[in-house]
């Protein structure tokens, strides 16, 4: 366990929120998306039932995953697709590279896929001489800036339009100082259109894969996934094994939940269903495990595999909104990321389950009813058990527990605090180790505790 590699959310969050104007802007922008989600959800009377059905479908599928994966592979092959299996991220990257090389593909366009982010595919391909262009506008902005996406659905939510303008001026030749979103989007349209037309291959993620038919469903608002795979003749679809659903009719449930949860739209502009390749083309599907089967074997956390990557938990999380995606130091930020990443690497991501006030809003908003706040709490138990809890925290908790276990000790300690604090000079009370006192007054210390007053009034 390398301490040096451990990421600390709290210090990054403090830095983010110290720029109060920007933090408020970020918070408002994401709250707005949450509000749109509310409006959309309230327009569906059976919303809570849909959530339960979605959760049940995913739990069922997860239990029978091996069977459904085999059914899917057979059906997909029957449609003319090639199916590959990748146990690790490395396997996945190698498979994708091999397919590209086989087709002599050098220029690749890629639509949004958190899986490929997780596997760090772009860096791998670039390092192997492949030119990869992210075509989702937000991802392209982030790619040009050399940053990582800060949100899984709204990758550039942390970037102002002026900053986009600067980036586009630098790389796309837009006017200096121009920041009008319509003007900038138009420039990106032209720039990416050329990329689509010249691409040798298109890589997409998969929102849902249908076991009974071997089909893939990809949802976008921009149309970039389809442009990317319908111009070149090679389509590589990368999916985590948990993206499988059993039947076509299950799509009705998930597609009614997905866009409403993500952006407040009733459905994305394009919901494409691919059964086999484009005539004359090739479709390669890469099924990726990369730790998912491991998570599946952990009863406290396997529900996290239900995730349909809508981002609603991020939009609603009061901590994420005020700390920004980068502060999580992980591919997927926010509540779901704070469960998934520690599951892979508890040492590096030990601070993430604590980047949370346990408010539970994420659980209430999750379209597949992942009990996120309960999992975050359980993950804290894992952090403590694996020895990743800071020594000072452990000692404080041990000490506090001992005091609280013994009523007399608790009474003495409480009395001592109440007696001492009002008698100490203010600068002693509000010293630099009093973190509570940095921005808050301590409560006024009463002379007598409740139990003393109660005994006076009512006898012991």
């Amino acid at each position, binding site marked *: 366990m390398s301490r040096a590699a451990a990421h600390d959310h709290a210090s990054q969050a403090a830095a983010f929120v110290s720029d109060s104007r920007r933090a408020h802007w970020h918070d408002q922008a994401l709250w707005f*998306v949450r509000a749109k989600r509310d409006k959309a959800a309230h327009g*569906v009377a*059976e919303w809570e039932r849909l959530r*339960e*059905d979605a959760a*049940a479908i995913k739990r069922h599928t*997860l*239990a*029978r995953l*091996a069977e459904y*994966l085999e059914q899917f592979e057979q059906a997909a092959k*029957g*449609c003319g697709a090639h199916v590959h*299996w*990748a*146990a690790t991220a490395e396997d996945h990257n190698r498979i994708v590279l091999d397919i590209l090389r086989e087709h002599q593909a050098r220029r690749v366009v890629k639509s949004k896929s958190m899986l490929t982010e997780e596997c760090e595919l772009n860096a791998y391909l670039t390092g192997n001489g492949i030119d990869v262009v992210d075509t989702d*506008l937000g991802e392209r*902005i982030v790619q040009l800036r050399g940053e990582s996406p800060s949100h899984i659905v709204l990758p*550039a*939510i942390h970037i102002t*339009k002026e900053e986009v303008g600067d980036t586009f001026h630098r790389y796309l030749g837009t006017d200096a100082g121009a920041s009008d*979103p*319509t003007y900038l*989007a*138009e420039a990106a*349209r032209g720039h*990416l259109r050329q990329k689509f*037309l010249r691409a040798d291959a298109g890589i997409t993620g998969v929102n849902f894969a*249908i076991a009974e*038919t071997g089909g893939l469903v990809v949802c976008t*608002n*921009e*149309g*970039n996934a*389809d*442009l990317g795979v*319908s*111009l070149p003749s090679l389509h590589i679809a990368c999916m985590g*094994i948990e993206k499988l659903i059993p039947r*076509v*009719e*299950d*799509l*009705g*449930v998930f597609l*009614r939940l997905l866009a409403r949860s993500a952006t407040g*739209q*009733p*459905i994305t502009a*394009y919901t494409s*269903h*691919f059964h*086999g*390749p484009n005539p004359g083309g090739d479709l390669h599907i890469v*099924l990726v*495990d990369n730790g998912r*089967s491991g998570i*599946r*074997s952990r009863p406290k956390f*396997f529900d996290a595999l239900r995730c349909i990557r809508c981002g609603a938990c991020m939009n609603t999380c009061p901590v994420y909104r005020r700390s920004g995606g980068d502060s999580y130091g992980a591919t997927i930020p926010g509540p779901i990321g704070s469960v998934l990443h520690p599951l892979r690497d508890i040492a590096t991501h030990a601070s993430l389950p604590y980047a949370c006030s346990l408010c539970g809003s994420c659980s209430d908003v999750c379209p597949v009813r992942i009990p996120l706040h309960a999992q975050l709490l359980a993950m804290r138990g894992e952090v403590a058990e694996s020895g990743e809890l800071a020594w000072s925290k452990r000692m404080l908790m041990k000490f506090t527990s001992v005091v609280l276990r013994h009523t007399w000790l608790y009474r003495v300690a409480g009395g001592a605090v109440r007696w001492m604090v009002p008698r100490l000079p203010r600068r002693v009370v509000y010293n630099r180790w009093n973190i509570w006192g940095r921005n808050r007054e301590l409560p006024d210390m009463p002379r007598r505790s409740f139990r003393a007053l109660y005994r006076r009034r009512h006898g012991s």
Partner: protein
Amino acid sequence: MDPKQTILARLRDHPLEDVPLPDLDGPWTTYEDPLGQFRTTLQAVGGLAVDVADGESPDAALRQVAAYRDARKICSLVPDIIRGNVSMDGASSPHELEDIDFCIAAGQFAVAENAAVWVTDQNARHRVIYFLAQHLALIVSARDIVHNLHDAYRKIAFAQRGYGLFISGPSKTADIEQSLVIGAHGPRSLTVLLVGSSMRSGAG
């Protein structure tokens, strides 16, 4: 062991409690006026609904759209209904359709709940046209409308191979400071011609 067997073995080694699939029979949301719901929702997502009464000319109806009037290269996938001036079949590669201003295609049916239209590649040799054209119009029979997505999937029979999609509105993005921009990478506009919609119709 090869990756497939490794993965399947890992899954089979950890049996989970079996949970039955829920029955999805509904009842689900339905609308008194499905066409009205479709029109309202389409407008909300940035599309345009144009009613074409029985006997009326779809081409005439479409002429209210400036982008159609001004279009120089029009590719129609439904030449019996509206004639274009560029034939898709003449294009040996999809790249040749790069400069199509306007595409008119057939929609199989409409979904009231979310203003989606189901479109396939059955009569579209180059499916990318739905995205590559600067503007898109879909022609749907007003009688072919369902209430919600559950009903929609009951109508679709996925063939062994093929491509189909729901199109709801024009392409769009809000990736720059949450400002909605219509016309991201795909078509800048979407017009849905509802043919035979002179009267309110029930849903199929």
